[in-house]
């Protein structure tokens, strides 16, 4: 069988692209960080260091979640094992692919999907650009980790990567800075409803489907954010929640607000919470989880030894964090609280 010239050329192009793809995948592997500590912003990567199938509640979100929801708080109070997989600018596209990876090691009963990523995107990018960029990042690790060549040395290039690092705070990052804002109403009614961009919505539905396939229940949660959240966005998410039959808990709304005091509870003037705010949100969300879902108390159980030891470390460092944030907020309290 003899091939025509154009067929030969087409074959050659395909072969070249295959070789290139193999090289891209191989190079992507070598550019992955040496430790799971640096896989993602904040401490999201620590989830890979958790013991197999120990996490019952998985929180997914962006920086608002990473600074707003402290799962160790729940373990301490109820023995609920949770992890906040969240990092700055994480999009719904990112979250979908990360959730796929997390399901390989964990089987959470409840997935808490934070809603901020439904609307946030970098102003320098169009929706199409950020979608294409994020999805390409997920499919080709080389693109996501390309800048790591700066940390490669001849010594660490071929050593086994160590992905066993564990985060005591389970993905939460305690912030002790205080930069308040006046307690003004930012959830006033303009009558508007901001619809979720088409492709983002599509990926949120894929996330719901993925959770359904793994028998996880989904809860939509909005972390308090005076900057970046409003009633129009709430209405958009509420419509999505109703459409897809999932419960939605917006901590910005008056009836569910855990008592956020914006003069003391934010680290940067209303965008992100500090530990004072995060404690309130985590309390409220913990109560809700305990009340609405059948979640086991794992404290002291076999197989949860690392959780118990991490809980001890968490309790040990808590007083200092609390004291620092209170000092910054100008709150004088006795050591007992």
């Amino acid at each position, binding site marked *: 069988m003899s091939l025509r010239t154009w067929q030969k050329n087409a074959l050659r192009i395909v072969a070249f692209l295959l070789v290139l793809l193999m090289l891209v995948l191989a*190079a992507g592997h070598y550019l992955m960080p040496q430790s799971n500590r640096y896989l993602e912003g904040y401490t999201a990567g620590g989830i890979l260091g958790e013991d197999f199938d120990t996490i019952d509640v998985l929180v997914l979100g962006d920086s608002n979640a990473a600074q707003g929801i402290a799962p160790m708080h729940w373990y301490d109070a109820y023995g609920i094992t949770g992890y906040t997989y969240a990092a700055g600018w994480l999009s719904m596209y990112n979250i979908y692919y990360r959730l796929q990876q997390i399901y390989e090691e964990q089987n959470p009963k409840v997935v808490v999907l934070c809603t901020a990523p439904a609307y946030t995107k970098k102003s320098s990018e169009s929706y199409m650009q950020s979608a294409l960029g994020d999805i390409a990042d997920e499919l080709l690790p080389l693109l996501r980790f390309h800048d790591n*060549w700066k940390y490669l040395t001849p010594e660490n290039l071929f050593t086994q990567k160590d992905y066993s690092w564990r985060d005591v705070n389970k993905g939460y990052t305690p912030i002790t800075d205080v930069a308040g804002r006046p307690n003004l109403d930012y959830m006033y009614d303009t009558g508007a409803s901001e619809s979720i961009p088409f492709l983002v919505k599509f990926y949120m539905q894929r996330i719901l489907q993925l959770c359904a396939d793994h028998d996880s229940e989904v809860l939509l949660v909005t972390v308090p954010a005076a900057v970046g959240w409003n009633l129009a966005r709430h209405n958009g998410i509420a419509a999505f929640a109703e459409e897809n039959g999932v419960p939605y808990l917006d901590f910005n709304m008056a009836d569910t607000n855990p008592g956020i005091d914006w003069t003391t509870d934010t680290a940067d003037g209303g965008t992100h919470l500090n530990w004072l705010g995060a404690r309130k949100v985590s309390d409220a969300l913990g109560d809700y989880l305990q009340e609405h879902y059948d979640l086991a108390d794992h404290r002291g159980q076999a197989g949860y030894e690392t959780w118990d030891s991490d809980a001890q470390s968490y309790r040990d460092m808590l007083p200092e964090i609390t004291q620092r944030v209170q000092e910054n907020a100008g709150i004088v309290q006795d050591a007992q609280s």
Partner: protein
Amino acid sequence: MAYNSFPYLCIFLPLCWAAWALLPQRYRPAALLGGSLLFYWLMAGGYTVWLLLAAALTWALGLALGRLQDLQAATVPGLEKTARKAAKQQFTALQKGMVAVGVAGLLGLLVGLKYLPFLARFLNALLTRLPLGWQVTVPSFVQPVGLSFFTLMAMSYLFDVRRGTTRPAAHYWQVLLYLSFWPHVVEGPFDRWAQVSPTLLDPPKPDYRAFTFGVQRILWGMMKKLIIADRANMYVKAVFDDWTKYSGGAVVVATLLYTLQLYAEFSGCMDMVLGAAQCFGVPLAENFRQPFFARSVSDFWRRWHITLGAWLREYLFQPVIVSKPMMQFGKWCRTRFGAALGRSLPVWAGLLLTWLAIGIWHGAGWLYVVYGLYYFLLQWLGEVTEPALLRLCPALPQWRTRRWYRLWQMARTFVLVNLGMLIFRSNGARAALEMLASLRRPYAGSLLIKLDVQDLWVLGIGALVLLGVDLLHERGISIRESLARKPLPLRWAVYCGGMLAVMIFGAYGDNYDPAAFIYAQF
């Protein structure tokens, strides 16, 4: 949809190429025109109407010019001598009138959409000096993408038809395709109708070799843009946008990096443009020829943005020089200042006009006037000091043939060009002067501004690679040709290496700012 964006490279270009290659030969221009209009509409939206109008005017006038010329050729030779002369004059006047209408329309479009805000501000500044209290409102609108490029190309088409060096296009879509052809509509080069129309209107068969060469050239352009230009941009932006904070070494490094950035970016963009056109078998004009091997600033401008210099030389400088008023001005100068000065003054007047045009083409603002004047002054100084230099150093003509003296000339030109770049990038004429003055103050802070040591290494190595490639080109070696003769594993290794280099060392992602093409805004 920028030339280095994912949608352009991975969706638009392959689809256009497939449509172009699969269509029967006579419908291939339709694929090009469709792709061009879609591309322009995606970039400019409603402003596309200006492009359509400019093309319509150009086409109609070109056609009319052609008809007139045919009529002249058919009737005039049969007439007797005096009538012939009169008829010829009438035809010439008619043709000149048509060209004038075209130039007025196209230039009006360019001035109206690009320079009006600047002119209004200038007028207001003058009006405030008068006790009348009048002010005009400064219009604010965005100039359509590629305006400075397609209007000049349209003018060159009319001039060429008028001069008889080219035949006019019969159909509107042909002129529209010429002006809107997507590879050159955003950042040039200024292509001539006679050069591109044969392959645009009568496309060659899809050629695997042309295709691969084109793709290779696009890859090379991507390397320049993503690895070098966008990385250098971080440093340059930090220093030039906040110039009062920096001095001495930091300004020197920022200026050098800006020169590197602009060269890598503009010539890289041209590589992507010419590469894309090559895939479709269209030979666009080269815009760069190893500019940093130039031995004088005028030599530099014959190697940098070649097609702009050529356009202005051919359609502004030379016609002005041989125009009647200029000849009269020359005569007047000769009676006033004597033969030698009388001969050179008109030439210098023409050169001044040309340099100012080069400056102002880049944008409306005093900064660009200063930029043009800077190069005019350099050229003029070089010329007037020449006799004195020859007297001081009689060995100069011999030295000029020596290698060491040529290296000195290149180094000197490089420094002068960098000073020009400093002016060009600074935030206004005053900032330029302050930055020049700040060169004398030492800079105490760290020179690692926005970039770390690894980034500077990449830039340094990148600059050396550019230099090496330019050196090979200067010696007349075609890299793609010689590479194509190598065995397949080596070739693939080079291409894969290039693509991996773009992906790994490209300055994209969360740690870098995305940077738009600089020349797309001129």
